[in-house]
């Protein structure tokens, strides 16, 4: 057990990232308020990006942008995870936008953000 704890503390970035992911995941799954669900989604994605960025960072090195003509790869961090984070951000921005638009339409129609209530009202609408 101390071994595990020590590992958790040495990799504190990853630990924090997974905790963030868990918070976001449960919020997205369990919370009844649609806006909070969207916030949860962003928490979840941010956790993942933190994980990726932490994996790509190498202590004491620079961001992989060449400014002074120095092309020695030993001086820079791994650029791939950073690229993946950027791609991931684009994806999560677009799904967030979609979900927000959906929420707007639902609010216009049902005047509430509570997903359970909306489900109930929608069922009643048909019958």
């Amino acid at each position, binding site marked *: 057990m101390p071994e595990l704890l020590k590992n958790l503390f040495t990799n504190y970035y990853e630990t924090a990232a997974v905790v963030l992911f868990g918070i976001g*995941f449960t919020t997205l*799954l369990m919370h009844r308020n649609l806006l909070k669900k969207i916030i949860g989604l962003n928490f979840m*994605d941010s956790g993942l990006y933190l*994980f990726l960025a932490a994996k790509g960072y190498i202590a004491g090195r620079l961001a992989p942008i060449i400014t002074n003509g120095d092309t020695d790869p030993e001086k820079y961090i791994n650029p791939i995870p950073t690229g*993946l984070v950027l791609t991931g951000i684009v994806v999560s921005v677009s*799904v967030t936008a979609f979900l927000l638009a*959906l929420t707007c339409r639902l609010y216009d*129609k*049902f005047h509430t953000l509570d997903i359970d209530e909306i489900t109930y009202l929608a069922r009643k609408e048909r019958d």
Partner: protein
Amino acid sequence: MDLVRNFPFLTIVFSLTCGVFCAILRPKAAKNLCLVWLALTFAMSLSVLVYTLRLDGSFVYRMGKWDAPWGNEIRVGPLEALMATAFSAVMILSLLGGMRHIFSDCEEGKVNLYFTMAALLVSSLFALIYTNDLFTAYVFVEINTIASCALVMLKSSGRTLVATTRYLIMSLLGSGLFLLGIVILYGITGELLMESIAGKVREIFATGEYSLPLTVVIGFFSVGLAVKSALFPFHSWLPDAHGSATASSSAILSGLVLKGYIIVLIKVFYRVFGLQIIMAERVSNFLFLFGILAMICGSVGALRERDIKRMLAYSSVAQVGYIYVGIGMHSEAGMVAACVQILAHCVTKPMLFCAAGGFMDVSGGKKTMADIKGAGRRDRVGGAAFTVGALSMVGIPFFAGFVTKLTLTQAAVGSDNVRMIIALAAVAISTLLNALYYIPVIFNIFSKPADGEAHASRPRADYAFAMCAFMVLNVGFGVFSQQIVDAVRRGLELFGM
């Protein structure tokens, strides 16, 4: 380099472009562009299929000619080409079969956006089939999610909006888990291309290090993609989404979108981890178990439904269960059965959904069992198609569904005793339940309606064409089953290399 080798890439990229153009065209023009492009896609995929079958091998297409560690790749073999061909054909027919509904259900002036989403969906499905890179797979999984949710919410009633929201939330949970799996795997191996990861994973597995993280990663992939492909117990969003959408959307979602995610999962199992490691990790036992439960519970759910589209949606839950039972069988034969089921279900279920759309047309837009009584007499071609589809689902010989049940039982017999008994019993019970809910519908649609004799209405040309083509596809699948199963088996052998 042969010209054919460019086709898979071209189908993906030009489908995206086609989607962009559809967004600025008038509805009629967008429809024509989309259909023409899909026909072209079908022709290209067919030529790729013929090419790979002649080659008896697979080839790798490098994007921008960058080599392995830097470049992005797509990889094409007979199995991928077969899936792509079937998917593009089913896509065209589903659109044609529900064309009237697309134009009547959609808000005025927004019909062209439907075709935009359809084109995006094709692009992402093809990318999922062909890609050789895990992160690319994630990006296209998300594009697929957005496009399919947009297809559901097109009919803007309150109920569809709620169904879309629930569908989107479940999908996002699934892709979150999938991405977490990719990220941890990247942390362990430092690679994103499937072949490179496979090499590293084998090395790591042999040393016995990281055994817990690897199990967890396989678990994340399995759960994430199972949520997205509506494996029991994560299926709660499916009946609402598929039951309330317009006919074409239900057909496309059930027939193609669910399968796209399963193909990614099969890819991960075969190409990233390899069947040996998957067997050793025992995660697929859970997939097997949930598959069995899905077969039974999906059918029971369908039995209780009085709404024909929701009944078909529950039947999809059961059919997805068959696929997962095949995957969880722990053997090559099981994987073959899973792939055959993917193809068989994708030529059957869209036909049923389109026929159900046709019944709603001739029954005043209603879709409960009582309302569609006698609909098969008013809409003859739809009635015939529904009968073919229902018999196929029950598993009558010479139809597509029979081939699945046959390959699945063969795989079960070759498996270990416990699995064999459970799988055989589940197939038997599920077949019985299928018959219990499909056969009464056939009787219902052909019986005399309460208000006297209804005369047959003349079906629209596109609808009739789609229905006939679906029937030919379905029977053709049943008749040429041996060739198809052989092609799938060979394709899977090449898949793992």
